[in-house]
């Protein structure tokens, strides 16, 4: 079983997890889904590392495994518990519409990829479209997710998309950059978490629901 | 073009002649009106007697009037008489030294009118104000039409210099008349009563009546001042008639400065003025005075005539 096919399958799985996140009614399910997604990314990293013998990719895979598969999801779940939102929250737009949009995004990405023709260096022809699709879908999650946590999850998801693209289209970004990016992500998530809890504690509302500033 | 030029002295002579004949024209008009209304009426020289009487009298001045009030009659008279200097009386042809043209003439008359109106406001009575306001209204309806009539003839001659205009028509004026001239003249006939302050626009004979225009402005003047104003209005009248005659039938030998020529010209001028005066008298005694706000319609007739005349000239 050759590397390209593996990457293709992983890409498909990633898209599937993304759909799960989109459709997830309860937030903690979405968190599990994104953790799974990160795990898939890590696996993809490992596969590419064996395929290309690029040592940096091992490191990246490791970091992804530890940080994005274990640490950050735990942080999120902790926040979820602190905010004890268990019940279903109705999405901003009906789930059907969301999925329809998702389909549009995917189609657009593949159309785009097709218009480009094969990208030299890319592991497979599908790497780029899948990457674009993942990134955009992640943002779609943020746009449609009702709560702040949905948005944080969506942010992860789209970051994952970028990482996947970076790995499969180039042999990953330079290590130092990769680490810097991940550090930034961690910082951002921490700041967001603090904000969410702060608002929850001061005015008992979800920060993503605030809409007093307008016009 | 044709015509040797009139010396300055001659111009002054004509001016004096014009001014001295002014009251007579009024007298004639009054007399004719009286006759038409089957009255005896005062003699034709009555205006002169009035003037002399007024210049003998003392002055009563309104307490609110400023120094300007005393200057008004002087300036008005001066402006009107100066206008008289611009009318060719017995001879057409340009003066040796250019003085003024039809526009300047109308300008001087307008100046006189403006000052009269201002003076009327000075005394600060309702009559003066009313007279001034209405006079200005009529004036600004009349002046453009006058200007257009002047233009309708000037376009043909290419100049607004009255002497040259007259000379340009030459002696064969009646043969040279075109439709435009008839229309222009008609417009002039409509305007004349308004410009000379007579029925159907104004009523020179009444005092203390709300319909009056010009007389209302004179209300506060007295003695010599009033005399000046009256003399000015006499002059204004004859100047206007002179303007009409110069524009439309400049009959009068344009060359030859000898005595006979002079007498001929004077006679011709006298007859022309007489005819126009009689016309005014007839109009005055055969029409009723219009309501003030019907006046624009009345003058509108003149406007249309003048505009058509111009159009005919140009098209």
């Amino acid at each position: 079983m050759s590397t390209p096919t593996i990457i293709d399958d992983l890409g498909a799985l990633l898209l599937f997890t993304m759909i799960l996140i989109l459709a997830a009614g309860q937030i903690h399910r979405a968190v599990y889904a994104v953790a799974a997604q990160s795990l898939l990314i890590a696996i993809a990293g490992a596969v590419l590392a064996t395929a290309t013998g690029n040592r940096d990719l091992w490191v990246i895979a490791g970091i992804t495994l530890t940080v994005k598969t274990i640490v950050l999801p735990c942080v999120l779940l902790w926040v979820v518990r602190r905010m004890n939102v268990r019940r279903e929250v109705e999405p901003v737009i009906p789930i059907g519409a969301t999925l329809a949009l998702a389909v549009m995004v995917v189609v657009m990405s593949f159309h785009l990829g097709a218009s480009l023709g094969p990208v030299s260096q890319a592991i497979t022809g599908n790497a780029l479209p899948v990457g674009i699709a993942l990134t955009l879908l992640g943002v779609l999650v943020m746009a449609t997710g009702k709560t702040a946590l949905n948005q944080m999850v969506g942010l992860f998801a789209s970051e994952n998309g970028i990482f996947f693209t970076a790995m499969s289209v180039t042999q990953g970004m330079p290590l130092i950059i990769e680490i810097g990016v991940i550090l930034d992500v961690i910082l951002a998530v921490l700041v967001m978490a603090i904000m969410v809890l702060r608002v929850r504690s001061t005015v008992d509302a979800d920060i993503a629901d605030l809409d007093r500033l307008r016009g | 073009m044709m015509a040797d030029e009139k010396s300055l002295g001659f111009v002054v002579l004509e001016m004096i002649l014009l001014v001295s004949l002014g009251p007579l024209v009024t007298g004639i008009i009054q007399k004719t009106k009286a006759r038409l209304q089957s009255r005896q009426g005062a003699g034709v020289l009555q205006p002169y007697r009035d003037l002399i009487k007024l210049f003998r009298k003392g002055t009563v001045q309104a307490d609110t009037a400023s120094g300007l009030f005393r200057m008004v009659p002087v300036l008005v008279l001066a402006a009107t008489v100066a206008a008289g200097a611009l009318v060719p009386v017995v001879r057409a042809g340009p003066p040796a030294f250019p003085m003024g043209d039809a526009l300047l003439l109308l300008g001087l008359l307008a100046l006189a009118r403006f000052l009269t109106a201002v003076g009327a406001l000075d005394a600060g009575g309702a009559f003066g104000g009313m007279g001034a306001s209405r006079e200005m209204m009529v004036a600004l309806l009349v002046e453009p039409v006058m200007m257009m009539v002047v233009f309708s003839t000037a376009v043909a001659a290419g100049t607004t210099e009255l002497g040259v205009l007259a000379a340009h028509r030459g002696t064969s004026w009646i043969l040279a008349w075109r439709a435009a001239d008839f229309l222009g003249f008609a417009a002039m006939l409509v305007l004349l009563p308004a410009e000379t302050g007579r029925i159907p626009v104004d009523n020179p004979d009444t005092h203390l009546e709300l319909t009056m225009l010009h007389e209302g402005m004179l209300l506060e003047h007295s003695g010599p001042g009033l005399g000046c104003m009256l003399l000015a209005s006499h002059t204004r009248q004859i100047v206007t008639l002179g303007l009409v005659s110069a524009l439309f039938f400049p009959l009068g030998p344009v060359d030859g400065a000898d005595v006979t020529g002079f007498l001929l010209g004077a006679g011709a001028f006298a007859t022309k003025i007489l005819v126009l005066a009689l016309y005014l008298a007839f109009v005055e005694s055969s029409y009723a005075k219009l309501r003030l706000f019907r006046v624009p319609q009345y003058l509108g007739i003149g406007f249309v005539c003048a505009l058509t005349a111009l159009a005919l000239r140009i098209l």
Partner: protein
Amino acid sequence: MAETLLWVLPLVPTVTAALMLTTRDRRILSAIDIGGSAILVALTLVLAGEVASGGPRSLGVLRADDLGLVFLLLLVVLTLAVSIYTVGWLKQAVAVGNMKAESLRSYFCLVHLFVATMVVTVLADNLGVLWIAMEGTTITSAVLVGYHGHHHGLEAAWKYIIVTTIGISFGLFGTVLVSATAAAHGAVGADAMSWSAIMKVAPMLDPGIVRIGFIFVMVGYGTKAGLAPMHLWLPDAHSQAPTPVSALLSGVLIKCALLGIIRFQTIAAAACGRAYPTQVLLVFGLVSVVVATPFILAQRDLKRLLGYHSVEHVGIVALGLGFGGPIGTYGALLHVINHGVTKALAFFASGTAIARYGTRDMRVIRGLLAVAPIGGTLLMLAALSLAGVPPFSIFVSELLVLRAGISAGHWVAVAIFLSMVVIIFAGLLHHVGAMVFGKPTEEASREPEAWSPLLGMVLLAAIMTLLGLTIPASLDGLLQRATEIIVG
């Protein structure tokens, strides 16, 4: 020398930030603040001199070229002005309780970290580092936006951090794509992300990939730069942040994002031809100018008004780049500086006004000229300059942008641009005129004007007027060289 400066420069604000944690005394904090900014200015000038004489210098992932220096100069000057302004502003803010005296040091610390990240952004040669620094600015400034702690501030901060993070993650995606094709053409390892290295191979790059990459960067960094329609977070954040921070956000931060766009524009221009990136910039610029207009006209909140104005002016910069050509680019860069200075002044002046009247509602602020003659005058001047009236700087840059548009023959764009400019002029003058003239309200505080805010404002006003009357040869040279970098 210059190379050392490259790593010293980011260090200065970082150290200042660290020093802040050593004390709680407001005076000492302000002193450190001003000192740090002054040193930063001095070192920057030295660096500028070096570069002007000896050409661009690079050190690892950092590189000082004329293009970056344009933005760096703006950054440090504004930082100094902000430091001076902060002294008096802080005193007042603490007095009325907007700021808690014990938490001042964290505030100062964050401000300087924020500055440090921006310094790295403008000095970054490696596009990855550029991205990291940019995200860094987002995180630090997001905390500052929410600093007042009431839930309006937090709402603004949340919107700010979420939307801009999305934006620059798009930016990262674009970066990845470009570096991917660069790596394919022999720029290996860390070079694959080094701007100067990529520029060497730029003409060979795969145009398709670069196109997509540029669009991702355009939208991504454009979000951060406040280009419409990705601008929605901007008025919220800029109106909720503490005034000095608003000045930095509007004055510099959005310009740094623009620098990111410009870096990629040069790559895209080399790879897919000049016309491509300029037309994208043109569209976004025009949209921004148009979208900003109604919100400026119907605005009631003073600081939101200024926020939307930033949208308009970023749009004008984008228009200048989009009209292209040396003149347009020169004008755009000049506009970056002019707008930065003027907008900071505007925020300062309105900050004092808001402090006087205790509200941001422009319907309440009346007769400022009567209660604060100098502040009122400065606000009026800033407004006039923003509206593009000579002898103030923005007139000159708008003139150049307009000329570029006319010479490029973009008549529709020019027509739309001009009509919007006139309408915005009317709106702005209407708002500010109503605030400055007339009879002051009762609750307006009549206390005399403090020196430090005035000093900061007068400094900026002087620069604003000076640049409106002349362009010094040194600045001109800098802009010329920077223009060459972009236009080639």
